[in-house]
């Protein structure tokens, strides 16, 4: 067989196999060159910026660039050495440098991440740095006893290199104790990882509500005649096309204390004028508004799967004696699984990273992880923001990978 194939030639005398391979390679190249401009565009304007930002989560030179003398001392003395007079002399010279370059705040901030309350230690000491005289150990301890704290020295040792995992330690609600071991922070200081978990729980709740609401609607749309279904579909698509800010505004108008729903309840006498229910600027508000915004993303994939389920299967089940519940559970539901999977994963992915709605209607307890990233951005804690962003991104990408495995990214449809 292969002999025959190798003997076959094209009109110009080349072996057919080689000619075919060249033609296929050319077709491949052509297809790839069509995609290349966009791929380059996305990599440059989207992937590189994100990668660059994430690098900040492990790179922070706020402390390291101001402490040349201390860095030398740390290199000369192994970890665990009790700081001697030479160490304090190095510290004093670096504090002087900080004073000249006005970097004491930055350096203090970097240490403050690891041992809280230490920012003022640096600013205060740098202010007095010019007056320091040997012996430096006594002089510095005179300014503040905290300079003795081994946690401060451990923190300075790790921070003397710009590359660090400290921000992930904080993001996972851990800290290093005096011996340098990782321990959980106090219950009331666990903020980040707790919020991370909470964000996934809230996203799961929103997804579950969306599924419960979307399932009957998608079923109705899928079983109605086409003309009627298209008409009702507009009710799903119109919110989908309406601005997110408009929909969020509407929910503020509907749910706020002096808003439409409370006013109706008062007018009907269900609640008193002083008993208006707080439904917005808290977690309830976030969940209601986000369910509304994400519901179309659940209805559409469910609908496209349900539309092609042949009604004869359920009829056959009924004629064979199954009750309507059994028919639903054993025959209909299993066939909708692809739609459920697609909708659930899509809504969950979008909900986990949501920012706008919680920021506007979330109040104090309705904030999600994205809002925490934004909070640290506005505080110029770039590295902290980047570490939190990385955590969020990893969570989302795992879900995205799962979506691609289970459903296939090319099956994604809109409207």
């Amino acid at each position: 067989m292969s002999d025959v194939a190798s003997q076959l030639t094209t009109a110009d005398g080349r072996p057919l196999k080689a000619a075919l391979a060249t033609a296929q390679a050319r077709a491949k190249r052509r297809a790839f060159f069509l995609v290349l401009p966009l791929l380059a565009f996305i990599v440059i304007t989207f992937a590189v910026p994100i990668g660059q930002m994430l690098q900040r989560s492990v790179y922070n030179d706020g402390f390291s660039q101001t402490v040349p003398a201390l860095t030398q001392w740390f290199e000369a003395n192994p970890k665990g050495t009790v700081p001697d007079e030479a160490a304090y002399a190095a510290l004093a010279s670096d504090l002087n440098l900080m004073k000249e370059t006005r970097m004491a705040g930055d350096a203090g901030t970097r240490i403050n991440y690891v041992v809280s309350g230490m920012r003022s230690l640096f600013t205060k000491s740098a202010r007095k740095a010019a007056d320091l005289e040997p012996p430096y150990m006594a002089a510095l301890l005179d300014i503040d006893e905290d300079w003795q704290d081994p946690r401060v020295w451990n923190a300075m040792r790790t921070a003397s290199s710009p590359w660090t995992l400290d921000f992930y330690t904080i993001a996972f609600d851990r800290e290093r104790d005096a011996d340098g071991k990782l321990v959980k922070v106090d219950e009331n200081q666990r903020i980040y990882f707790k919020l991370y978990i909470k964000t996934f729980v809230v996203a799961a709740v929103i997804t579950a509500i969306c599924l419960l609401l979307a399932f009957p609607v998608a079923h109705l749309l899928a079983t109605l005649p086409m003309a009627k279904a298209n008409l009702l579909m507009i009710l799903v698509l119109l919110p989908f096309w309406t601005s997110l800010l408009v929909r969020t505004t509407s929910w503020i108008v509907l749910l706020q204390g002096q808003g439409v729903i409370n006013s109706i309840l008062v007018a009907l006498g269900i609640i008193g004028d002083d008993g208006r229910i707080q439904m917005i600027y808290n977690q309830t508000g976030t969940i209601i508004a986000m369910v509304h915004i994400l519901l179309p993303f659940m209805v559409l994939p469910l609908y496209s799967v349900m539309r092609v389920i042949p009604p004869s299967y359920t009829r056959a089940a009924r004629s064979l004696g199954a009750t309507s519940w059994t028919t639903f559970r054993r025959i209909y539901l299993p066939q909708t699984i692809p739609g459920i999977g697609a909708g659930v994963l899509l809504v969950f992915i979008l909900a986990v990273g949501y920012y706008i709605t919680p920021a506007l209607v979330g109040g104090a307890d309705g904030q999600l992880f994205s809002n925490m990233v934004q909070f640290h951005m506005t505080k110029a804690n770039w590295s902290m923001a980047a570490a939190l962003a990385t955590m969020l991104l990893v969570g989302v990408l795992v879900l995205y990978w799962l979506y691609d495995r289970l459903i296939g990214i090319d099956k994604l449809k809109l409207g």
Partner: protein
Amino acid sequence: MALPTYASPLERAWHATYLVICVLVFVFLISPILVIVPLSFNAEPYFTYTEKMLSFDAEGYSMRWYDSLLTSGMQASEAVRDGAWWSDLWHNADWVKAAKNSVIIGFWATILSTILGTLAALGLSRPEMPWRRTIMAILISPMIVPIIIVATGMFFFYSNPCAIFGFGCGRLTSTYTGVVLAHAALGIPFVIITVTATLSGFDQSLIRAAASLGANPRRTFFKVVMPLILPGVISGGLFAFVTSFDEVVAVLFIAGPDQQTIPREMWSGIREQISPAILAVATILVVISIALLTVVEILRRRSERLRGVAAH
């Protein structure tokens, strides 16, 4: 869905409940959008229906919020409404400026993402395309990655785009180019999804037919492929435009005071002091989205008819 004649009373009751649930969900979906429309004509600065509004008293309604919307930011809003007043409005009114910015940014972002996206979709739907799945996953990712991560990343990158090469070359933050590039990246997944969906029903033998009849690839593309996928391309473009038109987080991070868009103005309006003027904007945006939805639906049906999908 009709109920079979053999349905038991329990099933009938359940069916009725099911219909009620569906109606309630539809109400939940649509009422927030409709409820703000009359409120934007409220004569009082309240977010609820006044008694005069409910009794359809003309005094309960007014255009004052639309008026304040137009005139805010003008130098002489109280002046006589002559040519100078309109020129003042066109150049100085906050929301007019925002609308102009939104349209300019949306337009260029749409052009960029539609051209690049359509080309890529053509490549992606060829059977010979190598690494299709991976590339597709990368191209769709702007839709999946949380917007706050995208925006912060772009904020740093656009502050100094050449930083990766180790030197400075100006900045893209606070420029139209920066915002347009960001919005184009965010709109691309929608173009890719819509155009590849259109191309999935495309009969590849038409291309071979055109070639066998002597058309060169360019002529084939413009005379055969383009007319058939045009509805898909336009709806993809509309999706990209809406994405840009509704985007606020990237604008918050990248844009300067000269690039404030409608969503950006709404954002500060909602955060600071929410006044019914916001509802007037919202109403205008709802009207725009109804128009866009109508266009997209017409295009979708046309595309299905062209491809013979909905022949039955």
